[in-house]
């Protein structure tokens, strides 16, 4: 499988990365080189193999459903590029 320039633009949109028209041809070439190299996996018959879900055989950890952390909104918004009264500020999304 390979990607064309419109697919590159679609992936970039999905990934929320703005790409310029000049960047698209180079990305197309690089992504296709990687996808072509990955094609060797098709040589392996994986018909009866289950996909790996965890490298360590272990049961899911559980804990009591209790609040054990929190209560420091100053810290939570400390690194925000824009915040106001412990809220993150973003461009207007609802007209």
């Amino acid at each position, binding site marked *: *499988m390979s*990607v064309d320039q419109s*697919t*590159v633009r679609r*992936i*970039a949109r*999905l*990934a*929320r*990365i*703005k*790409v310029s028209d000049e960047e698209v041809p180079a*990305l197309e070439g*690089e*992504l296709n*080189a*990687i*996808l072509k*190299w*990955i094609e*060797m*996996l098709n*040589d*392996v018959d*994986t018909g009866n*193999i*289950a*996909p*790996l*879900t*965890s*490298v*360590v055989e*272990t049961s*899911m*950890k559980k*804990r009591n459903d209790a609040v054990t952390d929190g209560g*420091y909104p100053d*810290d939570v918004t*400390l*690194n*925000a*590029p*824009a915040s106001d009264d412990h809220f*993150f500020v*973003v*461009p*207007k*999304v609802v007209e």
Partner: protein
Amino acid sequence: MTNLTDLTIAEARAGLAAGDFSASELTEAYIEAVEAARVLNAYVVETPDIARQMAKASDERIAAGTAGLLEGIPLGIKDLFATKGVHTQACSHILDGFKPPYNATVTQNLFDDGAVMLGKLNMDEFAMGSSNETSYYGNVINPWRRSNSNAALVPGGSSGGSASAVCAHICAGATATDTGGSIRQPAAFTGTVGIKPTYGRVSRWGVVAFASSLDQAGPIARDVRDSAILLQSMASVDAKDTTSVDVPVPDYEAALNGDVRGLRVGIPAEYQVDGMPQDIARLWQQGAAWLKARGAEIVEVSLPHTKYALPAYYIVAPAEASSNLARYDGVRYGLRVDGNDIIDMYENTRAAGFGKEVKRRIMIGTYVLSAGYYDAYYVKAQKIRSLIKRDFDEAWNKVDVMLTPATPSPAFAPGEITDPVQMYLNDIFTVTVNMAGLPGIAVPAGLSEEGLPLALQLIGKPFDEETLFRTAHVMEQDAGFTARPDRWW
């Protein structure tokens, strides 16, 4: 008196305990060495004031008889680990100005044991790279140079700053992380020792995520004993990381008993790749001969799916990265580049904030997870991963540990490898270990024809780091690797 920065952690610990010098004196010697080695670009931030405060506190605890395991030992911390109030940016532009109000579990463990922080170490952006050329803060330079050459070499990556700093003696030891080889490959390129522990041995809490099913933190150190001491402190069972495995941390230093009699050492046939440089092939045979002479048994084993590990990794790791890095949106932390609306702001921020290699991997990951391709790529890769793990599980019936080369070449020059796939091949011998969640250690074992360090890798069973340390320690003694780069910096 010897230069304090030339002491290993074990030697410095003994000197501090005996009162030969204070933690403050030791730290002062390192602060000077760090300043004198800025041309290596190993540190992105130096924290001398914090180091002096921590050393003073260490001296008080030593005087009070309450010294910890790493009391007064000056360390460098990879920029991927959260350090309270200090630059933690994964060497990416997108995390500009981020100072976490908390420590990663690993950093906290080290500080609780008395370690002193000298600063934050350079790395490939988000740990994506094999040469430390993708950092927003510029290339790290390897202290080593080829014989009769002044040309700069890369220290490997992604933990290039950690490896370069340990090699140059501008920290006593360093934290590092390994997703596909990012501890072992830079250790190999700089003649240092690096261990990637079993997945789940070290908490990932507070470590900036790259590929969560593969990432694991470990130390880079000057020798095997120091790496055992550091892992002792870094490893823990942590309720904050659900993949942290509930197995007690053994006494790793006690495992260094020099006895490998009867140990079954596997040599995987598939690691004999076409075009392996002769000096690396010779060193591999030499490593097996050393262990055999010590009473170990050398056993040929087969890991049939080895060659599929790297292409499968380049599906799994970018897929996980594309999900993990979705959090960098210009809202909660780091860089924000304004736009016409919120989507435009996201897209502008991520376009400006991520470097080329990171964007490439996010896009590959987004593609392989997108509708219609998920089964063909992601599920297929996870099935290959099952086969890789099964190969190892079967081999463990015959052997206790495996011996392989660590890297397919010694260090290369910046700009020498520009093709992404060629760069990815650096991890050909290390990546299987991450895919199967196993521990692996790189030990310097000799010099290449060009006079550069070469390393061997030992691969262990899950949670059997002790056998790795024991075997590596024996190999280190037999290799007698004492070569040092000429001090040109």
